[in-house]
């Protein structure tokens, strides 16, 4: 139990550093302002949203096209399919025939869904 956790402890340390790294300059900036070391002179250009150097256009909170939602939903469904198939693929050498048949039925049912999706042109961006 400890071995696995020890490996992930490295990941945890990395995450802590990832959190500290961006927050440290912000905290330092705030502290410098508090101690009167940093001047505070905001203007319209400075406070503007940074968007890769291009001037921002329109409001930030726009209404998204629902096509994105459909694509995201289809992504979730096939994501779950892969999650179901992964343990099966790993265990396939011990349950060859039934595992293969079960997986093929599983894929076939979802393939029907894919065919329906294709025929309804849900994959088209229009």
């Amino acid at each position, binding site marked *: *139990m*400890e*071995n*696995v*956790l*020890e490996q*992930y*402890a490295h990941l*945890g340390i990395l995450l802590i550093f990832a959190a500290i790294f961006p927050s440290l300059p912000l905290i330092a900036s705030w502290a410098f302002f508090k101690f009167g070391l940093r001047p505070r002179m905001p203007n319209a250009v400075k406070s503007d949203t940074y968007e890769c150097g291009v001037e921002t256009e*329109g*409001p930030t*909170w*726009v*209404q*998204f*096209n*629902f*096509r*994105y*939602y*459909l694509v*995201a*939903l*289809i*992504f*979730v*469904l096939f*994501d*779950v*399919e892969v*999650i*179901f198939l*992964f*343990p*099966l*693929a*790993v*265990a*396939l050498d*011990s*349950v060859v025939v*039934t*595992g293969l048949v*079960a997986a093929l*039925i*599983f*894929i076939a*049912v*979802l393939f*029907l*869904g*894919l065919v*329906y*999706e294709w025929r*309804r*042109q*849900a994959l088209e*961006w*229009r």
Partner: protein
Amino acid sequence: MSDFGFHLAFWSLAAMTIGGASMIVVSRNLIHAVIWLVLSMLGIAGLYLTLSAEFIAVVQVLIYVGAISVLMLFAIMLTPRAERDNSQHIKTAGPAGVVVIMVMIATMWVAIDTDWGAVREAALTEQARLIGESLIKHYILPFEIGAVLLTAALVGAIALARQDDEDAAVHAASLQAELDDDGSVDPVDVVDPPLPTDGEAST
């Protein structure tokens, strides 16, 4: 790893999960609420890791952090209310809170009452193998029903979305024609062309 390290990991992850969950409730902006939800779900994934359930942790990150949160973001972003403010007072909040608390107590009761058996260490591939074997040997019917459920969700989503889309396509075509007459540029995909009537773009 020492016992101290384990406790540190557990308590910091628990703080992350509960803190994120509290911020979901507190946050006025729905988009920010989803971001806090992602933090909370990452904390849960970490808690799975402390239980040595690597496969579940990976699935949690892949499905919940990666996919479901994006789905939620899109669901919020396609609502017509630009401010995404959830400050609106809901009259049923009190009873709903009572129901949620009751469900939570019942879930915790079951979780504490159940004998979960001993935890044994298993690597990621071995855990996946165990899950795969039990899927085939014991849960083959639920497994196939899962496929049917996924397909039903897919068909339902398309049936709902495409119905809207056909109306919108007619409108978009007319709008496109107008724009072509003006000689202006094509409408950008991200910003939806203004919809003809209210409520059409709602989920």
